[in-house]
């Protein structure tokens, strides 16, 4: 460490450069990881809040709640501890007095207010009458207030916000809960044929593999499978995770090359030290520890940079700090950087002290 630290003090510029590169990569990785977590959470937060163990959907819906249609009377055939019907419709809303240009996309769920899907109302009251809704307080950011009358899609009657519940999103848009009847009215109008239909069922308290399908037109999905198959969810996660791991590999490569070039530049110094009898192991340790120190400093600086960035991120960016994954990435970064430096050990071992004497 003595050699490494003194060299870094002496050649501040080049080592600051490596630290900076490490910091920038760390920064990019942490921001990406935060966005990945934020996006994933934005997709699934409402589902997580249900604390359900599985769902029952129609077979042809391809695991997509929105595309599923089932007869609500099937509920009695689902043998689980708690079963709740759920209707879902994605639409855009606006305040009644606003123009159509100023609309907000939301996901509207139709539930029984006595079921376990019902969120805790933190202000106002629960929906009771038709066309009454409760909304995630996230909608306050868009200017919605308690008692607001809102237009919903092409539905011909205004909805009224009667209560707020905690932050909740589904498919990255804010969530609104209302009665099953209201959702049916929005989704199917007054169609007599659709009177008994609903999107699906959510169950809780019984593991999904213990629940039999109520009939052959239905499928039972565990809650995790359901989340994985949320539209776009997997593709998004896979893309971002791949980017992160590529970045980590690239950073190891860059640091490895940096250290390798610096080692090549130092061969004559290593030669001189070997003439004096300094063992290869001491020199190798110095380089590895130095790389470790550079990586740790870079990662710390990158974390600091991320902290500053997050403070300035716009609210529209679904950023969520994931401390667990974040620290894992930092750890892997440091380990990979050190692995990158191991390249150079062979070069150090091969330095012939005779070259230092130079004839």
């Amino acid at each position, binding site marked *: 460490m003595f050699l490494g630290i003194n*060299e870094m003090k002496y050649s501040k510029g080049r080592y600051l450069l490596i630290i900076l590169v490490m910091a920038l990569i760390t920064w990019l990785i942490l921001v990406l990881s935060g966005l990945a977590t934020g996006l994933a959470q934005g997709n699934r937060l409402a589902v997580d809040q249900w604390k359900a163990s599985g769902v029952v959907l129609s077979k042809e819906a391809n695991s997509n709640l929105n595309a599923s249609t089932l007869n609500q009377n099937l509920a009695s055939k689902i043998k689980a501890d708690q079963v709740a019907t759920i209707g879902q419709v994605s639409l855009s809303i606006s305040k009644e007095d606003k123009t159509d240009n100023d609309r907000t996309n939301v996901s509207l769920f139709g539930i029984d207010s006595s079921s376990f899907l019902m969120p805790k109302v933190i202000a106002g009251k629960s929906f009771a009458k038709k066309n009454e809704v409760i909304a995630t307080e996230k909608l306050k950011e868009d200017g919605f207030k308690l008692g607001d009358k809102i237009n919903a899609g092409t539905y011909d009657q205004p909805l009224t916000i009667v209560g707020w519940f905690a932050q909740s999103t589904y498919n990255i848009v804010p969530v609104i809960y209302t009665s099953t009847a209201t959702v049916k009215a929005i989704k199917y109008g007054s169609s007599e044929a659709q009177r008994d239909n609903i999107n699906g069922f959510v169950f809780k308290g019984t593991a999904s593999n213990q629940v039999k399908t109520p009939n052959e037109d239905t499928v039972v999905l565990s809650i995790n499978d359901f989340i994985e198959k949320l539209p776009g969810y997997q593709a998004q996660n896979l893309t971002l995770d791949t980017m992160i791991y590529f970045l980590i590999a690239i950073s190891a490569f860059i640091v490895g090359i940096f250290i390798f070039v610096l080692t090549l530049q130092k061969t004559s110094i290593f030669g001189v030290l070997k003439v004096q*009898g300094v063992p290869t192991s001491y020199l190798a340790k110095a380089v590895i520890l130095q790389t470790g120190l550079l990586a740790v400093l870079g990662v710390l600086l990158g974390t600091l940079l991320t902290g500053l960035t997050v403070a300035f991120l716009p609210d529209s960016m679904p950023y969520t700090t994931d401390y667990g994954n974040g620290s894992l990435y930092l750890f892997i970064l440091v380990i990979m950087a050190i692995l990158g430096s191991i390249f150079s050990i062979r070069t150090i071992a091969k330095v012939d002290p005779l070259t230092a004497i130079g004839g």
Partner: protein
Amino acid sequence: MVERALSLKNISKTFGKGHTKVEALKKMDFSVAKGELVAVIGPSGSGKSTFLTIAAGLQKPSTGQVSIGSKSIDAYNSKELAKLRFQKIGFVLQSSNLVPFLTVADQFTLIEKVDKSKKKPAAREDILQALGIEELKQQYPRDLSGGEKQRVAIACALYHDPDIILADEPTASLDSERAFEVVKLLGREARNKNKGIVMVTHDERLLAYCDRTVKIRDGKLADFIPDSAEV
């Protein structure tokens, strides 16, 4: 009988093969006693550096034996040789062997860091004073003159209190006054601390300060008889 610090027996060194073959050393015998400063002279390309590096275990002879003290080093591997060099041999290069990113003081600290044997190094201040470089402790090698660098390099070689000092043209970058001082210092080290010192040089004016001079010509060693007695 005097104790030997270093002895080379029947040393030959051949580089290359066929028509590029160079016989740098031919069946050479040499030894230096403790307390003795020996000068080695010879024309360029005569094998002086080859001789010195073989003595330091930096390369193996083609034939012959090298002994440090009473121990043969022929069977040592590179790790054992490094340890031997670190503990018993001070090697002073023609161009200074300093680490560019360490201050003078840290050059010494490095030696302490590498040393795990906890052998007490000869007092740093004494050596620095003897070489007149105690003012330079916080300087980096780039701020030193050639002579200062060389004196620091010699100080480093002495710091570990080695039994043997091998110096390859240590005065090449010094003006003649400094050169005389360095040779006198080496002579004092040899006599006062009972070290065996071998110095390769081009400068015949320095020979008067040495106990003995040998000459290498075409890879062979001969005693040197100076043309004139005065210096």
